[in-house]
């Protein structure tokens, strides 16, 4: 069963990234008022174009870290996803503190993105790396509070237990502030839209400004895979994961994750990005207190009705 789960994790990442690439293009065309020309094979065209170009290098990069950063990013997406039960009893890495492992993957994502920016030995990637660390830290704090709140009703740090605790009522209803905050984390982990402080256009692509060819393709794929991973995690923790009537559990998980994925992509295209210092103020003074409030409300609710 575990072998099936591990294989499913890899397939979820692959097809999730593919779906994300298609939706991303369609979303951009819709917002641009363009004809939606996207096709299922379109991501393959982009991949082939990347692969047909040279992977350049800069003068004196930290070569090991530069080449490893996309791989590590992808590995974190896979590792984070591995603790999510895909169907009752089907989980790649079933251990008691799954949500802590996910938290570790979030924190290490900040490190990996910084390394990607740092190791290129060039100014725009470096600035992207700096900015990402500054924003990433408080965003991770938000996520910790939100995830602890989600774990409280389950009285367990295992993701499987968190899913099971939602049999009567989904966490999105019980703790409505949690899901939007977690989605903001998702935007940050995937360097997307209003939280894209690492790879944004004002830095000519930021940490990936110097990447080309196969290396760029790997980085872009890792970003999309992380988006798939975040979507699955969000649907497990807040939308009841595989729980649902009639259809098989795995299908429910995929459907819910697809919806979350679409919401994340839409948010990425529709919301404006603030300059980093303004965002920093917004996170520390508005979003973090909101995440405290979420935790307090869940705690009070469990004390009174628990």
């Amino acid at each position, binding site marked *: 069963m575990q072998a099936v789960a591990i294989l499913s994790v890899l397939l979820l990442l692959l097809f999730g990234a593919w779906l994300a690439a298609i939706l991303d293009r369609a979303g951009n065309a819709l917002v641009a008022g*363009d004809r939606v020309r996207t096709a299922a094979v379109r991501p393959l065209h982009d991949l082939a174009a990347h692969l047909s170009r040279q992977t350049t290098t800069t003068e004196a990069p930290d070569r090991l870290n530069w080449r490893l950063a996309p791989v590590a990013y992808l590995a974190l997406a896979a590792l984070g996803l591995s603790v999510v039960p895909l169907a009752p009893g089907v989980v790649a890495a079933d251990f008691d503190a799954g949500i802590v492992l996910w938290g570790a993957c979030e924190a290490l994502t900040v490190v990996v993105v910084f390394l990607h920016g740092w190791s290129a030995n060039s100014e725009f990637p470096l600035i992207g790396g700096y900015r990402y660390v500054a924003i990433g830290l408080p965003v991770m704090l938000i996520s910790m509070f939100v995830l602890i709140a989600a774990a409280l009703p389950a009285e367990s740090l295992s993701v499987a237990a968190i899913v099971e605790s939602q049999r009567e009522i989904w966490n999105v209803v019980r703790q409505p502030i949690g899901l939007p905050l977690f989605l903001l984390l998702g935007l940050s982990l995937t360097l997307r839209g209003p939280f894209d402080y690492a790879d944004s256009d004002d830095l000519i692509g930021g940490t990936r*400004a110097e990447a080309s060819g196969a290396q760029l393709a790997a980085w872009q794929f890792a970003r999309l895979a992380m988006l798939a991973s975040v979507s699955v995690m969000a649907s497990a923790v807040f939308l009841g994961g595989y729980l649902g009537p009639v259809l098989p559990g795995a299908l429910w998980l995929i459907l819910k994750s697809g919806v979350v994925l679409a919401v994340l992509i839409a948010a990425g295209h529709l919301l*404006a990005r603030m300059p*980093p210092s303004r965002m920093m103020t917004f996170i520390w003074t508005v979003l973090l207190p909101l995440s405290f409030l979420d935790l307090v409300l869940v705690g009070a609710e469990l004390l009174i009705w628990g």
Partner: protein
Amino acid sequence: MAVAALRRLALRGPVPVHAAIGTDALAAVDDLSLDPRISVQQSPRHAAILLVAGPLRDEDRSDLCRLHDQLPHPRATVFWRTDPAIQIADPPVVSVEDDAAATIASVYRSLIEEGRPSEPDLQPDTPPNPWRGKGDHGQGGEGMMGGTPYGRPMAMTGDDLRDGLQLDPYTAEFGPFLPVFPPGLKLRITLQGDVIQFAKVLRPPLPQEEQSGPSAALRRIARQLRLLGLTGQAARALRLASVGDGKAAGVRRLRRLVKWSGSGQAIPPGLGRVGGADVRDRLAAWWEVASGETAEARAPDRTLVDLLPGLEWSEAMLVLNSFDIATLTGMCPIEKREDKAHSEEEKDAPEPHDHDGHQDQMRGAA
């Protein structure tokens, strides 16, 4: 077999193009970016075709050579609305009337199918500075810090403008082809993290046609939207700018879409205040013009180099792109000496930094 399949697939996508924009070519490149056969890339590393659009100044040519060498192989250069500015064998030149996208697509096809050889480097692939190190580690300075190992200045700590912490300042030249700068503008900037400590104008922006009217306002709005991460909305603004009349309803819809994005709140209030108007005010005035109304022009009372210090990079880019190019040029007085003698330019930087070094990898792009 596999390689042939890969090529076929690659050719079915749009051509990744990086544009080096010269005089009177910004609007044309904006229009070209809407062509589905083309995908304009911000970084030269992500492109296969270097599009040189519009005439350049003589002093921009060495920057263009550096930019050219940053494109990954296979690569080619297409000159549009200009004669070839740099030495390239058999360069495709497209006049104003021709279909630039078609030429770019055919050059890309022959490049991928190996009918056309990839262009070699224009500059020697050698370190830009000789070994000038001194001391135990060749660092040339005291202890582990400072000095110019291999001719690359090491950062020394300096005061931070915001909080009095001592952080490493870092000086580099940006421009004249940086996509987030107005075309032609070249600045020397000292940064601490992403905060600008010091800026100096080395070359002013190049003049661009079409400086008034709804279309020009929409193009400027598009640049701001891109900086705010709203690329789809920016493309919509450019499409509206490229059509002649009857765009009032489209502008209204776009304005609503942009309002929902929270862009009004995203730009800090009071940012880049010049002549009593900040970035928000200038953006609002452009929306008025785009909707067919008139907005009063205010004369700038500050220079660009006064405006930038203390701003984060992304704030600075919002400020830089909140002026039309004629106004910005008026805010960029430069001393004559700097145009002639590059080697003397470093004298009045706050730190003794000579950044012809390795951190200038992006400078051509920059």
